[in-house]
């Protein structure tokens, strides 16, 4: 315990409260962006369906409807706006909670609301998707040197990040829930958060290849 490395390790561990939140937020940010990158496709599909439906009425009043290509950029901007909004929500959740609050079923029951139900459902898949992105980045960086070990290192990194940053972040935001003013608290956020959760779970994790 006396060697310099152990002392540094301990010092960093004691100062964890100062910087671990950044990693927890960054992890959710990565998962959110991955989901947002698919959300823009969904928004594009919605916009193009809308334009298709409105094409005839627009032409009758002398307006030229947008071509499908013109809708790609607005769709990306909308997805970006929603991503930033959701990231702010995550930031808010993290900063309002202590570093390691006590988790107990009773405390959770007392804090039960729409927000309390949706929060873990949204946090877990986005953090997992973020962890997978980090792991795959590690694999990509090391693959030219040794493809086989790089694959395993990537998976191990994903698991480590999911455990050390994802799980601790989840425990932090859920454990930090306080008694709501109303059980319906968080109802407005729920559709947005759950949309990101579903996209992160479906596109952010390697289900497609595994399932097929």
């Amino acid at each position: 315990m006396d060697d310099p490395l152990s002392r540094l390790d301990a010092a960093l561990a004691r100062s964890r409260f100062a910087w671990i939140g950044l990693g927890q937020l960054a992890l959710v940010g990565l998962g959110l962006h991955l989901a947002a990158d698919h959300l823009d496709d969904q928004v594009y599909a919605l916009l193009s369906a809308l334009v298709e439906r409105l094409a005839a009425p627009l032409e009758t009043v002398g307006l030229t409807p947008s071509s499908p290509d013109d809708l790609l950029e607005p769709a990306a901007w909308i997805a970006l706006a929603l991503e930033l909004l959701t990231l702010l929500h995550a930031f808010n959740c993290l900063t309002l909670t202590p570093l390691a609050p006590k988790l107990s079923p009773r405390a959770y029951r007392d804090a039960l609301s729409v927000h309390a139900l949706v929060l873990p459902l949204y946090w877990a898949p986005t953090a997992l998707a973020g962890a997978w992105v980090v792991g795959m980045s590690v694999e990509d960086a090391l693959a030219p040197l040794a493809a086989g070990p790089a694959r395993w290192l990537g998976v191990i990194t994903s698991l480590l990040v999911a455990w050390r940053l994802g799980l601790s972040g989840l425990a932090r935001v859920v454990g930090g829930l306080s008694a709501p003013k109303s059980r319906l608290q968080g109802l407005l956020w729920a559709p947005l958060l759950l949309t990101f959760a579903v996209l992160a779970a479906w596109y952010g994790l390697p289900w497609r290849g595994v399932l097929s």
Partner: protein
Amino acid sequence: MSRRTPPKGIKPQKATPARGGLTDLFLVVLTVFGVMTRTPVGGVTLWAYDLARGVETERPSLIATFTAGPSARVLAELEAIFVQPEAMAGALSSAQGAPGEGFPEPYRTAARIALAKGDGPADEALRAELAALPAEERALAALDRLYKGDVEEALEVYAVGAEPRSRAIRRARQVGTDDPSRYAAHRAFLPDAQARAARAAVDGTMGLAKALTLTWPIAAPHRISSRFGYRIHPVLKTRKLHNGVDLSAPIGTPVLAAQAGEVEKAAQDPLNGKFIIVNHGHGVRSSYCHLDALHVQKGDAVTAGQVIADSGNTGRSTGPHLHFTLRVGRDAVDPERFRPGG
């Protein structure tokens, strides 16, 4: 200062040391680096940092990190088509002209597969139902825009998604592979499960497409003396899978390459006599046995319909004929199912 000793038999308890700080910090740095390089927030943060240092850099586009993938609707339409082969088979048989005409790839291929599998046939109700669906045209337009007619790319993205494909291409580029965006060039860099899915979609579809556009190896009138399937071997008198068809033809009849490809083997052995194996790509191979004269050699590129040999009666054979085998993937398939007009 005297040290207190615990009572006899009880070990002193040490305070649990704080640990894992280095690991956690390393993971945080990795994650923050990911955010900086992959998300709009990171791009803008780096740009602001450069500005603060007085370094003039171009402001990054906030939406630059959004990749334009096939829209969910296009994928849903593709999926609907791929999982309903009988519907495509119906569309195919209601189209004008020869089977497959009027439907661009990859739909034509999907339809042909449906026919080859025997999943058809379309009844009138099915045709009417399909005619009422405008999905194909919309999906095609979107695919044309996204993939510029690269069917392999469309099939691969359909099977594994755009992100794993991009990663495989990136890695193929890192090791200096030629033209890494080609499926054949980067498929080795796909993770195992995704490689299997891509192989099923790309090699499966394209391979069957090749098989379904065969040239029959003998153009002259001939009869089929033995079909594909289990039979009593004429020489060995045992029940054995006949892995091809025997086309009865006089010695010297021109033998045509069934598809474009590369001659993988042009050789002779006691069983097959003089024989040729042509690799058509995507796991499709054809072989031609008991030949009299070979007109190509190993490594030659051949075109569909090119004369590659004269038929004969060499090897273990009971009379002049061509033994023609077609393999799709690992399996020998019945060539007659893919016979043009057959």
